[in-house]
């Protein structure tokens, strides 16, 4: 076994009694099968086609320790929420992998919506959890998913019952950092929307301080018949953080799944979305934006599978890369045999601001049915010089003109977010990454992107 692999699992036996669901045999069996798979395959490396462009250097260099209760008590001055100052938003908050009831607020949950921590849920309704947990995603050849399965120690379990329409967004917040030694933590989320239900969920991963830590998160999502889930993800990890997050989603008949991943920080981050359109009329929108600086590395990898006829997907990923940052986009659309009338469209565009920035893209189509409409587009380039000159010739200073063009470049991605409040909040967050932000006049920081 490789030394790094060994290090990451060495505390497994010692940890086991303290991990959620330790009293349940099936949970332990699940953990052991994850451990075995991780031991067999080891840490992903660039020789694996799926990891060609992302080397997990940070994991090779650092020895991460398991989190303890002291880590969980770290002081959080400001809660990283998309809705600052709004008290009525239900949220569940974890700090360094520990549930923080003092920061969470689940009092306003509407009837028919259940939100628990992983351990809470395993205590409250283990039979129900068992019918979903680990049954949506495929662990094979995904060693970090397997590692999460072995070590999962936090995370939220959300259940929206049949026909329930949840108006308010629900936030699942993960804060990490401020530990004396580098730590690793493993959130495992499960989101189940039963038939005809609707909800908006937001996963936030935020980092405190400057020290390194490793967040390995897995979210399993089940969108039932005719249900509608908006699932947004914000990642603002600290400068030395390593974040590997994956989403495993299945979408049933006439159901909709919309996701948007905003990556705005982290030394090395990778967000994976594996979506299976399993019911006729299923529809997904998998979108994202990233803005990387310094020596940050950001990878967005998606695999969307059209399993049955009459399914539709749309993907838009846009990113800005400055300094020596590196962006990766790998997007695969698979149309299975007999999944006729599949409609898939994917777009990846990157803007390079610096001579040392790098972009690697691999948009893939894998198609086994003939009556399909699938396409992808990928571009990489710099700011449009003629547009820049035009703006400057009207007196707009160079730095501001550049920011305007970056903003306009990103607009196409943000427009994909159908929830207006989230769209504005995400765009605002993005604006704070722009260089020389002080140049922007108010309406740029405050207002909408669209031409209202």
């Amino acid at each position, binding site marked *: 076994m490789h030394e790094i692999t060994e290090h990451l699992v060495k505390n497994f036996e010692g940890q086991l009694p303290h991990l959620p669901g330790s009293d349940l045999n099936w949970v332990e069996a699940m953990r052991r099968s994850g451990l075995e798979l991780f031991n067999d395959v080891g840490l992903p490396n660039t020789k694996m*086609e799926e990891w*060609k462009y992302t080397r997990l250097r940070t994991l090779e260099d650092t020895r991460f320790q398991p989190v303890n209760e002291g880590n969980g008590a770290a002081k959080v001055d400001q809660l990283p929420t998309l809705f600052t100052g709004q008290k009525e938003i239900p949220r569940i908050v974890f700090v360094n992998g520990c549930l923080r009831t003092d920061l969470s607020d689940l009092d306003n949950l509407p009837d028919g919506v259940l939100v628990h921590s992983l351990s809470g849920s395993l205590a409250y309704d283990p039979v129900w959890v068992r019918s979903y947990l680990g049954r949506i995603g495929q662990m094979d050849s995904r060693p970090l998913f397997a590692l999460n399965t072995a070590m999962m120690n936090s995370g939220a379990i959300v259940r929206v019952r049949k026909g329930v329409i949840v108006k308010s967004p629900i936030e699942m917040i993960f804060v990490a950092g401020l530990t004396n030694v580098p730590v690793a933590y493993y959130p495992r989320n499960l989101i189940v929307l039963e038939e005809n239900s609707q909800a908006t969920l937001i996963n936030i991963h935020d980092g405190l301080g400057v020290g390194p830590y490793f967040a390995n998160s897995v979210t399993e999502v089940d969108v039932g018949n005719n249900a509608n889930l908006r699932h947004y993800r914000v990642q603002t990890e600290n400068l030395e953080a390593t974040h590997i997050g994956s989403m495993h989603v299945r979408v049933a008949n006439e159901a909709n799944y919309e996701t948007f991943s905003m990556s705005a920080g982290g030394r090395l981050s990778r967000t994976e979305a594996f979506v299976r359109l399993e019911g006729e009329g299923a529809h997904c929108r998998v979108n994202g934006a990233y803005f990387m600086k310094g020596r940050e590395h950001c990878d967005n990898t998606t695999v969307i599978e059209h399993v049955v006829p009459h399914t539709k997907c749309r993907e838009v990923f846009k990113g800005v890369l400055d300094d020596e940052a590196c962006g990766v986009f790998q997007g695969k659309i698979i149309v299975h*045999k*007999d999944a*006729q009338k599949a409609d898939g469209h994917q777009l990846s565009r*990157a803007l*390079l*601001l*610096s*001579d*040392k*920035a*790098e*972009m*690697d*893209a*691999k*948009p*893939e*189509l*894998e*198609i*086994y*049915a*003939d*009556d*399909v*409409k*699938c*396409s*992808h*587009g*990928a*571009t*990489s*380039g*710099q700011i449009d010089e003629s547009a820049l000159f035009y703006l400057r010739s009207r007196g707009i200073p160079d730095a501001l003109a550049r920011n305007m063009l970056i903003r306009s470049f990103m607009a196409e991605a943000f427009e994909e977010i159908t929830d207006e409040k989230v769209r504005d909040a995400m765009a605002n967050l993005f604006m704070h990454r722009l260089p020389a932000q002080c140049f922007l006049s108010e309406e740029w920081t405050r207002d909408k992107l669209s031409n209202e």
Partner: protein
Amino acid sequence: MGAITNTVAQVREMTEEKYKYGFVTHIETETAPKGLNEDIIRFISAKKSEPGWLLDWRLKAYRYWLNMSEPRWQKPQFPEIDYQDAYYYSAPKSMSDKPKSLDEVDPELLKTYEKLGIPLHEQEVLAGVAVDAVFDSVSVATTFKAKLEEVGVIFCPISEAVQRCPDLVKKYLGSVVPYTDNKHATLNSAVFTDGSFVYVPKGIRCPMELSTYFRINAENTGQFERTLIIADEDSYVSYLEGCTAPMRDENQLHAAVVELITLDNAEIKYSTVQNWYPGDKNGRGGIYNFVTKRGACRGRNSKISWTQVETGSAITWKYPSCILQGDNSVGEFFSIAITNNAQQADTGTKMIHLGQNTKSKIISKGISAGRADQTYRGLVRMGPKAAGARNYTQCDSLLIGDTCGAHTVPYIESKNKKALVEHEATTSKISEDQLFYLRQRGIDEESAVALVVNGFCREVLQQLPMEFAVEAQKLVGISLEGSVG
């Protein structure tokens, strides 16, 4: 309507022909013993009276090869190849005394080429095309040699070039595809038998199209030809390559290497119509076409353009590439790949932009029918010094029937903000509306499909030299035969 009726007639004519190149020539051959070892390599080298440095190079490659593993990243997978169960040298006996002119060449061989539609007697040949005919491991004849020599163009079998201009061969052989490149290319470096050599001197525009016709005839024989084309400063050459093989039940290996080099302001246009035996309907037999083709635009403003029409072979593994080293150099790749029945293809290109203001264009049209599976795999890389570089890629796939597969796997890597990369790809089925429209006008379904596909491929077909365009268009029709209904 003239063009349409014409095409339809052609297609009809084709449908009766099946793989018309599947015959075997019965001829006495001289064959090296089965299997691969250093002695076989020494045998091949001795047969060609090669200088010591070349034998050393071959042996170096062979020893390196022994420790290499097969590339496994491509989509088509196949059983381990038993390299000891093949012949690495086979030549018609009549060729062993090296005929001086066409009149001395075995008439049986000449007949073979005639049957393939490639007459070798100069007076019968299409004016303007010089042909090098390679039969298994040796070059049978090269036409118009004298005429080309008048302007200083060297066009001859590579085994002859080793004798005639060893310095050029020594300088450039393996300089684009090193002997360590990949298992198939390394094997080729060890055992290559023949192939074409072209040198176009400074300032010369080659007065005619050059062409090589490869034929695998012998049983259980691999073909390992090696082509080297050098276009010196301010020169131009257009080169065509065609290939066929008899119908045999076992798979045969074709592992060729092609190296192109262009110096300042030079241009090479390389066109291939590949029609190796694809195996039968059930996927039995057929050629494994594992080819490494690469060009280096070494000079400023130089250009390499690859055009390929791939219709044959059981498995195609081929990525004609351009390394754009010289500033302002240009690389192009135009491809039509058609797979039918049980054929598999994993093909595409690599455009490596190193110099400033280098440009590349990729147009790929893939058509998959029957139970075939096809992958476009392409790499576009913008190096840190490739300021002002541009790439445009358009990849379209067409599926005919619901049992085939079509895949697109582009790799796009940019390390320069001043480089612009644009990639687009689509996959769709053949348009019912178009088919219905044509059929309503009285065109039968199969011809209608051929017409629509020809339209789909038009952009690439236009790139082919005239002499090849018609043949390629016919091929499109034949290859899809039996794919509808």
